[in-house]
């Protein structure tokens, strides 16, 4: 039983009246790992998570959470799974401390509510009503509520939305701590740096399907980039011709040049680029070599047009 993955989704389909939210999604999240689900708005992230949480039934496909069916076995799963909704869920007039004490009573071996409140930086706000907390404080209370029952698996739907940098770092620490104590974490986020930093595995989904999956390093690949700035209008075709096969160069935006190579930037490549520049009387400034970021990969896979 303990060998079952945290989440196992195969050929999942969920049709709403006007749109197919999830369209044959297949992905697996291993136990004890942080798995991030990334995707543009409307990609099917929340629908997928809510099916795993037992809130909605799948139209077809197979979903297993800790080896159990979230729809049929919800009674067995509820004590073992923590949930943080994308927004709301807390009575507006309830004081933060009272809310955690209430939820603690629902679980046999809960964390200490006062200690947890302190841990998420809300000790001072214990008597403050939920509706009087700042957006970031509300998020932290919802996060604390998801973990108070010592779950084996937590679903966090955009846990750091609306948080300031301090709160975001505190949340990252908490998630890392959960992982360290063996808890499986499934999260959605729009922050690529967050996914890159926290995740063991990343799943990028779009239009209800998996478009890429793997560790952040695998997704960013060995491919490297060389970036520099110079006068606009350089002959990038001429530059590419002077470089090894498979190299691409583009100017975007004007005056910013990116040279991409599939197998990483080598000293020889750097020498070839600077030699070409010297030949053409070009001084490359702000020259740097970096690997692709998760954001580059994400935009490449899901396009740049705006979503709903």
């Amino acid at each position, binding site marked *: 039983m303990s060998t079952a993955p945290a989440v196992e989704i195969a050929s999942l389909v969920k049709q709403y009246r006007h749109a197919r939210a999830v369209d044959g999604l297949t992905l697996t999240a291993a136990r004890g790992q942080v798995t991030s689900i990334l995707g543009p708005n409307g990609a099917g992230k929340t629908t997928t998570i809510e099916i795993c*949480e037992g809130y909605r039934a799948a139209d077809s496909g197979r979903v297993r959470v800790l080896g159990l069916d979230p729809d049929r076995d919800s009674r067995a799963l509820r004590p073992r799974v923590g949930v943080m909704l994308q927004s709301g869920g807390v009575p*507006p007039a309830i004081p933060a401390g009272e809310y955690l004490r209430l939820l603690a009573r*629902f679980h046999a071996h809960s964390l200490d509510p006062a200690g947890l409140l302190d841990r998420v930086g809300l000790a001072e706000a214990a008597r403050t009503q939920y509706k009087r907390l700042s957006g970031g404080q509300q998020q932290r209370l919802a996060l604390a509520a998801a973990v108070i029952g010592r779950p084996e698996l937590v679903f966090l739907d955009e846990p750091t939305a609306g948080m300031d940098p301090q709160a975001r770092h505190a949340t990252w620490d908490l998630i890392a701590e959960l992982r360290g104590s063996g808890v499986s974490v499934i999260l959605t986020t729009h922050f690529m740096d967050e996914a890159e930093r926290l995740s063991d595995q990343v799943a990028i989904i779009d239009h209800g399907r998996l478009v890429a999956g793997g560790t952040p390093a695998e997704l960013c690949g060995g491919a490297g980039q060389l970036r520099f700035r110079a006068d606009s209008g350089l002959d990038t075709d001429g530059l590419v011709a002077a470089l090894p096969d498979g190299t691409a160069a583009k100017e975007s935006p004007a005056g910013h040049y990116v040279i991409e190579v599939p197998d990483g930037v080598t000293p020889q490549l750097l020498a070839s680029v600077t030699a070409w520049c010297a030949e053409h009387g070009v001084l490359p400034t702000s020259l740097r070599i970096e690997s692709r970021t998760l954001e580059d990969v994400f935009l490449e896979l899901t396009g740049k047009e705006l979503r709903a």
Partner: protein
Amino acid sequence: MGRMIAAQTAMETRMLLRNGEQLTVTLVIPLALLAMFSLEPLVSVGGGTRIDFLAPGVIALAVMSVAFTSQAIATGFERRYGVLKRLGAEPLSRVGLIAAKTVSVVLIELVQAVLITAVAFGLGWTPHTSALAFLTVPLLVLAGTGAFSGLALLMAGTLRAEATLALANLIYIALLGLGGVVFPLSKFPAAAHPYLTLLPTGALATGLRSVLAQSAGVPVRDLIVLVVWAAVGIGLAARTFRWE
């Protein structure tokens, strides 16, 4: 399960007692009507003293205010704010949540009962206190609570929170006027009389009054009316309630 229901009940009750608007509806208005209408001859109540007529009606109003108006509004907004959805992820079951809400309503009713009887006695209330009354009054109140709770959850589980808020207040005022709470049903045309006692408030007020003011036997008709309302309301609510 008992521990979870107890925790949820305590929370629901605390939230109700802390909410000024809810307290106005559940305690202040019934007590104010009791005092005002018994001290000033605003309405002719027919035979008997004014307070003996008013106290049973105000008890019926109090039951309606907490089981129907207050519960409908609170639950409607809990649904709107995702509170019910989030609770669905907890080990507390849906049945446990409804049980907690019901126990919380009954606890508030006990507070109302203490305050209303104390004020009524202070105003010279002399109810008939037979053994039958001690059995029948709680039975009527429980049946009334079931009837009003069913209607409250039916509205809260299907309508938008704002619509529930408006409608719950509107129905409260309508039933306050038409339900024999402070205006005797005999003031209405005789032809309307039987229909008004088919309303839950009319049935509860009439039933309580027949036991406490007229020391009649068990008001079977009123009890049946309330049980039918409860069965229909709870049945429909169970079928139609949407948690989010």
